[in-house]
């Protein structure tokens, strides 16, 4: 099934008939089987599915970390297919922000240096105030000089969000950003992601298996066996308990 949301030209990320198979011959595994989906500018989408459903592969292909076997991906209006590794990297640097589950930060650098890293890699020299502001926006104004080992897991994820947003990317991809966090830290992180979308007009695509986390999104996509199988639209209140229950019910049905 094909899900299209909104007008084409305002989509931050568009996947068209994306197939991704791993291995060859009899051992070949199809992780994505012809998925077409678009993510509108200024939207917060959660991608859910049982393990092995292809949700991580979808994220990797959409983010240019993995190349589809068939189909096309475009980010911010640029087709990723056929780009060199170097061009793909610089494109990622300009258009895409990442928040991973763990190991998000370079351990040798302070929080502030981590936030500044994408800009410095792009050859820019960010103003210290800009970095301080980015840290302040995730509530860590006083932690800029700390190394990751001196921060809690939730604080580390917040630094990662600040880093993902500092380049003003077209889209932020989050891969189980709350997977390793306690409930309170999870809420903070999800709140920040939602804030990025609604207050700062960013686009966020989040892969998760946690219905509570996906209840912070505006839209939830369900994947199973490499196909998009379902979609729910949220009520607009962050972490709505009823919506979370509805998502959980859908998931239970998929896993059954």
């Amino acid at each position, binding site marked *: 099934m094909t899900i299209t949301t909104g007008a084409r030209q305002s989509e931050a990320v568009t996947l068209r008939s994306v197939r991704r198979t791993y291995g060859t011959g009899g051992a070949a595994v199809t992780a994505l089987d012809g998925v077409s989906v678009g993510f509108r500018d200024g939207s917060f989408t959660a991608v859910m599915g049982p393990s092995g459903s292809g949700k991580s592969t979808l994220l990797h292909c959409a983010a240019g970390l993995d190349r589809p076997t068939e189909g096309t991906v475009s980010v911010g209006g640029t087709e990723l297919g056929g780009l060199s*590794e170097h061009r793909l*990297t610089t494109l990622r640097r300009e258009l895409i922000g990442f928040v991973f589950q763990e190991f998000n930060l370079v351990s*040798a650098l302070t929080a502030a240096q981590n936030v500044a890293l994408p800009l410095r890699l792009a050859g820019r020299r960010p103003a210290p105030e800009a970095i301080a502001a980015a840290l302040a926006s995730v509530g860590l104004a006083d932690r800029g000089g700390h190394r990751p080992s001196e921060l809690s897991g939730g604080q580390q994820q917040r630094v990662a969000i600040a880093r993902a947003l500092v380049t003003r990317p077209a889209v932020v991809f989050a891969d189980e950003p709350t997977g390793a966090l306690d409930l309170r830290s999870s809420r903070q992180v999800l709140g920040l992601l939602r804030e990025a979308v609604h207050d700062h007009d960013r686009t966020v695509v989040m892969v998760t298996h946690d219905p509570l986390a996906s209840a912070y999104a505006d839209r939830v996509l369900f994947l199973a066996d490499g196909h998009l199988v379902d979609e729910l639209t949220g009520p607009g209140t962050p972490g709505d308990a009823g919506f979370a229950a509805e998502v959980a019910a859908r998931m239970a049905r998929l896993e059954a």
Partner: protein
Amino acid sequence: MLSWSTVRERWTGFVGSFIALTLGVGVLTASLVVFVSAQPAVPDRLAGAAVVVQSPAGGEDAESYVEYVPWSTERAEALARSLRGLPGVTAAVPDRSFYAQLVHDGRPVGDPEAGDPLGHGWSTAALAPYGLASGAAPSAADEVALDAGYGIAPGSTATVLTATGPREMRVTGTVDGPGIYVSDAAAVALAPGVRVIGLVLAPDAAPDLVAAAVRTAVGDAGTVVAGDARTALEPEAVSRIRWLGTQLITVMVLLAAFATVFVMASTAALNAYQRRRELALLRAIGATPRQTRRLLLGEALVVGVVSAAAGAALGVLAAPWFGDLLVRAELEPAGFAPSPSLLAVGPAVLTGIVVAVVGAWAAARRAARVRPLEALREASVDNRTMTAPRWLFGGLFGLSGLALAVLTPAVDDGSAMTTAIFSALALILAITLFAPVVIPPALRTLTLPLRRSATGEVVRESAGAAVRRTAATAGPVLLTVGFAMLILGMVKTMSPAFGGDDARTLGVDAVVTADGTPGLSDAAVDRLPGTVLSGLSTQVFVAGTARDALGVAPGAVPVAGDAGTLAAGTVVVADPRWQVGDTLRLTFADGVVAPMRVAASLPPEALPTPLLLPKDLVRQHDPSALTLTAYVRGAPPTAVPAGLGVLAQDPLDYSANDDEDQLVWLFVLVMVGMSVGYTSIAVANTLVMATGDRRRDFRVLRLSGATDRQILRMVGTETALVVLFGTAIGALVALPALLGIRSALAGQTGVNVRLIVPWLEVGVVVAVCAALALGAALLATRRTLHRAQPR
């Protein structure tokens, strides 16, 4: 910024590189300082002669030193006379030097080199210039002036040993420089041949102008040197010593460079491997492959600069000590003192930095290709340890090692040993490269008995599962133990087998050599009991080329074969270019040219020197000729009277105590010592880095009820096991090779050769490896456990 921060924060990952590189640059700096300082110098005793005329250069001798064909006494005196008349020349002194040594209480004093004798004619003292410290110059035949350092006052008598024997002489004066000075008339008899005429110039004379005038006067009768060119006057013995020192320095520098690159490369590879998630993260958030590569090379550069600086400081500090050591080992001339210069330190520092970057190059290239996706995946079990080059080179070395081993019995005796050695080296390298494949299954089999205890089970499994860590630890141990055992055992087995040749074939009961003198005097040889086989060593020139010759008496020839045909005026040759009946024109040490008929021609390997001459002829032409080795038949070593620098040994002891062998042994010990040092650094470094990575394992073990003590014991056992295992495999590869070498030797020399494995040295090698590995692993574990304390 990132490179610097990373090095500072993750210092455990760089400490191994840092130590290896600091030591490497230290060795390089000290060696270069010594090397640069050890340049030829104008000998002190000729320093006052601004212009020097040398006798014509002959061809190079067997060891490529230029030898000078001496002038005869008449020729030298005539030349000196003609030079004395030149403007600006105040003195022209033929340098007459001969073997002489002071005897004190029956023992020769000092141990002068044969090529740099102490005996001189009195007038040569003016060339230094040395003056009288007290008393008067020698003028009669039995008068002598001595170096004031001997502490013998004028008026007393001193025993002076020359090539013919000891002589009582009256001391007329003391001199403020080294040497034993006799009257010029006596010196003519002791040193009839002259190779150098020193010119003392008037204070206002310009050396260059005088040298030009001298050149015209001398023509092609000699070579004129002035100023710095006078370093050509350095005695051959001194150059030879320095050459030996340079050889050792070269070996050390090459070994240090190779080992440093090896340690750097393996550390960089492990470091990049451990950090692949972080590198992948960088790639994901926008670092291009080129930026990633630059990051790693930048880190190497930081480490390189810091440790090159530290190493240079270390090397400069160590250089005087190193120089002293070389002097004591007789690998640098006495009085040698290294002085640091930019010429030595600069290249050392630069090399260190280049080595650091080159060592990290391959790892950086590989790491830069890390896919950003790997940041998202949980670290999987270690399985990609065998890289393509490992397979390739491991296979190549393995195959060639096996091929050589198969070939060993087939090749002829001469090359069998070389074949065996190369076979063993290739096999050791192959097994080291294959360590990741070979070690886990072998280790698992070897440790079956450990299965019974719980900690034993964990030890077994973790050593087997962490292929990379185990291979990185056992590999260098294997390499070092195998290499050390092979080289040490080979040298120890070979030296008696070879050195004993002469004594065995002659069937003698004692071998007499000189101890404290460069050779035996006639008096010392005459005192020997039994039948004495000996010869006077001298050098003659045939068509301008220096040849070693032995002066022998028929019936007492110290070589196998027949010299009975040797009569007065004839020569026995061992050089296929000369035939029986030919007449050779020989120039002797006294500059006299005489035609000699070839009485017999032998195959080259039959004689120790190319020429055999009648003994009295040699003594007549070379008053300084000495006997290097005398063989005694019919009397045990104990029957040989002591004194006059005589050292009598059993033929077997003699062959084992050869000077040359001791030098080889020193070289080998230096090589093995440095290899062990570097291996230990590599092993300790691997363990420190790998242990830090096991924090999670330790936490799980603790949660499962293991005490810290149990964890430490586990890590200790595992490390000991891996070291033991490396040792066993190293020995397993080296021993058959040694046996092969033994049988090859036996075939070559025709006698039964004993296999000698220097267990002590090999034991020390293993102990050092084990101690460092255990220390590093346990310390790192303790630190990790401490850090992993639940908060």
